[in-house]
């Protein structure tokens, strides 16, 4: 099956790009989190130990030798997955793991340090100094991991088919370049003409740069993208009240706008007792802008949605072993 590996400098939009490429091509995204979950499903006892750890060994207290063992196991698992499905692999030393593998596109995502520090500042609310330190630390850990496991340096240009400078390209442009490379190399199983326009997910770029306020908004955005629902994040602020000088004194910015549904969605994970103010604003918005369709997703609505997909930690389900007896 086809594999796209994406090696990224920290702060260069690699994660967003990988997710976007996977969504566009319909490939499975393999990152640290998904790998940990797969591990957990396969062997929960070893999962905690073997959540590899490219930025690694020191962070978790696992020794270098153990980290090497885990990397080997994770490498085996990723290689096995690549036999079964098309993958986009972000990090994980995949440029080393799949170095000479046919049917593989190796992408390197870079940006000048100043740009990456700025991104880290914006996304994580760090000072320039803290962001610089964070980036340097991640770089060192990743470099050590690649050197010890695969004996390579991420900076070696011979490891990559395509290198993208993210301070000069948008995520959307980078996506198009990767998709073009994938098609030119004949990696995609489904011909381009068979892809129905409008069924491709929307850009993660806006999502990332929009800086979601909380984990629920990120999860909801993923949910929309999963079903290919085009949306904008906080695209419009509705003035609700003005003072005597015409200055806006109260306004409301719904979280999501679903373009095809012409529907705004306000997501709140506050307890029901704390949403009175928000309810009042929504009522006012409906009164002032009667043509605007808005839906509030309360905490329970959101959790119901997650529960529907079995994503909440409910009571343990019946044990098939026990039932079969």
């Amino acid at each position, binding site marked *: 099956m086809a594999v796209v590996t994406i090696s990224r400098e920290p702060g260069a939009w690699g994660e967003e790009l990988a997710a976007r490429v996977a969504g566009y091509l*319909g490939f499975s995204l393999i990152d640290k*989190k998904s790998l*940990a979950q797969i591990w957990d499903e396969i062997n929960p006892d070893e999962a905690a130990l073997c959540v590899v750890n490219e930025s690694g060994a020191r962070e978790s207290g696992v020794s270098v030798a153990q980290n090497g063992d885990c990397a080997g196991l994770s490498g085996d698992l990723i290689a096995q997955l690549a036999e079964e*499905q098309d993958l986009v692999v972000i990090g994980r030393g995949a440029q080393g793991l799949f170095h000479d593998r046919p049917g593989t596109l190796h992408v390197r995502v870079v940006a000048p340090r100043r740009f990456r520090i700025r991104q880290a500042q914006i996304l994580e609310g760090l000072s320039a100094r803290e962001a610089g330190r964070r980036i340097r630390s991640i770089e060192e850990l990743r470099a050590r991991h690649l050197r010890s496991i695969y004996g390579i340096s991420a900076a070696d240009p011979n490891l990559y088919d395509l290198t993208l400078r993210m301070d000069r390209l948008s995520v959307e442009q980078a996506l198009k370049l990767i998709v073009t490379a994938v098609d030119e190399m004949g990696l995609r199983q489904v011909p381009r003409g068979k892809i129905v326009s*409008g069924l491709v997910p929307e850009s993660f770029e806006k999502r990332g740069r929009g800086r979601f306020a909380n984990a629920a908004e990120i999860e909801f955005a993923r949910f929309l993208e999963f*079903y290919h629902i085009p949306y904008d994040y906080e695209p419009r602020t509705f003035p609700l009240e003005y003072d005597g000088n015409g200055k806006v004194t109260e306004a409301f910015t719904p979280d999501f706008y679903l373009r095809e549904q012409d529907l705004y969605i306000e997501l709140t994970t506050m*307890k029901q007792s704390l949403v009175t103010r928000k309810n009042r604003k929504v009522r006012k918005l409906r009164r002032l802008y009667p043509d605007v369709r808005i839906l509030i997703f309360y905490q329970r609505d959101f959790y119901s949605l997650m*529960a*529907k997909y079995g994503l909440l930690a409910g009571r343990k389900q019946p044990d098939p072993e026990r039932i079969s007896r």
Partner: protein
Amino acid sequence: MKVRKLDNDGMADDVAAGIADVLISAEAIQKRVAEMGGEVGAAFRGVLPLLVGVLKGCALFMSDLVRHIGIPLEMDFICLTGYGGAGRPSGAARITKDLDSAIEGRDVLLVEGIIDTGMTAGYLLRNLEARQPRSIRVCTLLDKPARRIVDIPIAFRGFQVPDRFVVGYGLDFRQLYRNLPYLGVLSDDVTGLNLPAKK
């Protein structure tokens, strides 16, 4: 909709563990499904409809429904990956079991067990419409409009249900409860819905 006290309809306790209430009894389901079969048969008289069942939730409903449709018809099934949260490998919905036949020029009836947010049905409608059927209509046993995000034109509706977590008669929670002959409300304790609220 009135919720009545739990009656397991003869199922073993294990099968119904975690069911808080019976929302719609097996008898009420069978009665309504028979009516729906008549409605569908009348609507498609003179054509050969292709019923497309959305797996796995439609399984019991569709098998009962077709027995009450008194005209010739064809059946096919389609299956979509379910949303698995942030940790799942795939970031986009994918068809895991596609139709066996082309639907271009056909009269299609998409058969769902339940329409909730409308995301799954909306995705499938867009996908199927791209294949240029002559017509496509939607039939669902349950319509739960409380959190509808994508508007779905429902032509045939069994029951409109309140905002409760419904399982049974083909509908599952983590793949369980599909074999219940009635539609039950799952307790918050099982779904985990009681946990976040305590935070």
